Every structure is written in C-alpha cells, then in structure tokens.
C-alpha cells in the first residue's frame, strides 16, 4: 500500500513539472492557428506591433464570461498602441462541445470580437505555453525576432465587479512596456476553468 502511494505522489509531482510551460523572461513560441474567419494567424503576421496580449479563453467558462467585456476593451485600447489581443481556445470540443470551432464562430459574431479568436486544434500550443485555466493571459513584448514573456496571469484583481478593481494587472504590465519599463507585477493567479483536454 505504501509503495503504491509513493508512486502516485511521484507521478503527480512529475505531471506538475511537465505542465509548467513558459515563465516570465522566456521566449514565447509563435504559432499558426485558424481564426474564426477561416484564415490562419501567426504572431509573425504582425510586423508593426510592439507585443501581444495572448489570452487563453473559450466560450463556456463563467469566468471568461465575467471578463469578456474587459477583454474586448483591452483590445480596443491597446491594439492602436501596438499590443493587440489574441485569444486562443485550447479546449477539446470532444470534452466541451460548447467550445467547438463552429460555436467559436457564432460566439465571436455575437460578441462582435474585433480581435482574432483562434482554435488550438489538437491542443498543440497549450502545452508550449502552459496555460492552466481560462482566462489565462500572457503579455509578450517583441524583442527583435523574439517574443518575450513579460507577464503571466489574471486580467485584474476582481472578476466580480470591474468597477471595484484595484489593480489592473494586464493594463499595468502593458503600460510599463509602452513606457520602456519592465512590469512590476509579473505573475498573478486567479480562479478559472481548467482547460479541458482528452485523457
């Protein structure tokens, strides 16, 4: 009995190490994913941007719904300043039918998304970034040919009430980068929906 438990515990800790993905300061990998308009999108398609607000998102998660208005506003505010939002859905539609590519198209139309909403078919980008939940934000800055991770975490410190927010983590990080500085808060946590992958 004891031996078995030890193995289980070891397995769990190994899984955790594997799931860690990108860290602040790492170079983020580019991707080529299908947008809701049918076109493929890569970071390299944006030669003039200063960086990106990459958000692992989906249709179904109540926390995403709570933040959707704020995600749309982030793009409106920061796309003209060189930091567009790029949303990625990595949920497996076989596990969550509401997060299928077709439903993504409907959802993006209904909410009038002005940013790309990409489908990570087969969950290939997810493990490279190590996103654990939705919404999970990665702020990237462009450094020559590289995309450097500057911030990982939540959008702000109050999912419930946008007007009661004290710290706008993502905005603060992007504002710092626009001012040529490093973000002071580089990692935050928030409750979210786990990203659903096939077992």
């Amino acid at each position, binding site marked *: *009995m*004891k031996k*078995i*438990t030890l193995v*289980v*515990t070891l397995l*769990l800790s190994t*899984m*955790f190490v594997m799931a860690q993905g990108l860290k602040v300061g790492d170079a983020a990998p580019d991707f080529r994913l299908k947008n809701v308009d049918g076109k493929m999108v890569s970071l390299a398609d944006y030669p003039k941007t200063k960086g990106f607000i990459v958000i692992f998102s989906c249709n179904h998660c*109540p926390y995403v719904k*709570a933040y959707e208005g704020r995600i749309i506003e982030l793009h409106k505010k920061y796309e003209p300043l060189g930091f567009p939002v790029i949303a990625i859905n990595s949920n497996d539609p076989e596990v*969550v039918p509401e997060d299928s590519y077709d439903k993504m198209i409907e959802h993006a139309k209904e909410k009038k998304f002005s940013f790309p909403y990409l489908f990570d078919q087969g969950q290939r980008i997810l493990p490279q970034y190590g996103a*654990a*939940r939705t919404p999970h934000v990665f702020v990237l800055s462009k450094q020559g040919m590289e995309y450097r991770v500057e911030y990982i*975490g*939540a959008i702000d*410190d*109050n*999912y*419930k*009430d946008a007007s*009661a927010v*004290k710290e706008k*983590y993502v905005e603060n990080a992007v504002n710092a980068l626009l001012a040529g500085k490093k973000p002071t808060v580089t990692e*935050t*946590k*928030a*409750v*979210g*929906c*786990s*990203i*659903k992958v096939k077992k």
Partner: protein
Amino acid sequence: MESLFLRGNDTIYIYNFWATWCAPCIKEFPIFERAAKFYASKPVKFLMVSLDFPVGIDNSLILFLEARNSELDVVLVDDPDQNIWINKVNPQWSGALPATLIRCGKNTIFIEDPVDYEEHTQSVNKMIINPKTK
C-alpha cells in the same frame, strides 16, 4: 477564510475547491461523498469549498445541494482578490478548478485535477497510517 485552513492537530482535512458550473467538479463530487462515508469513523474531515458566483446562488449552489441532499460540509468563498489567497491555499495551485488539498498538520498533498477514488483514498490512508511523516 484563513481560520478554515490553519487547524493543526492529527485530524486529516480534505478541502475540495469546486463550483456547480465546473463540469469535472460535479463529476467528482460523488467521490467525496463516498469517501466521507468510508472515513466516517476516522479522524478525517471533508470541506467542499465552493467558488460559485455569489450572485444567483439560489439557482446554482443551493439548488444543487438541495437536489443532492448531500451530507458534506460546504462553504462559499466570496473573496474576489484571488491572487492573494490562492497561494495561501497552496503555492502549486494555478487557480484552475477542481483542486483538492489534503492536510494533516504540516503534511499536505495538493492535487490540481479531478481526483480518482482509489488514488484519493490511498493518499488519505497514507496519512492515517502515519500522520507525522513527511
């Protein structure tokens, strides 16, 4: 909230972080009901920590619990500043649901994933057999 987590004695506390809107959480809920029955005579306490949105709770959490007639203890967390308290629960936790913390004194096991009944009871058994080991 903190007082719920800083109980120190030889009792094993099992905290499951869940919400009624989280499908894998609902799926594993019966595992905790089964385990609570199994450990009824042992020093093992279960606490289901709900992260349901406080708005509309009558139609989510309360509806669910009444329909299930569950004997598990349930608390609702209403503290939106999650960046502060997630790390206090366990630094390994990303914040994704479901998550389970098993604690006995300074001994903790943290699981960020749906639990499996067999694995879960083995982890708990290990602590019961020797609650003082690391």
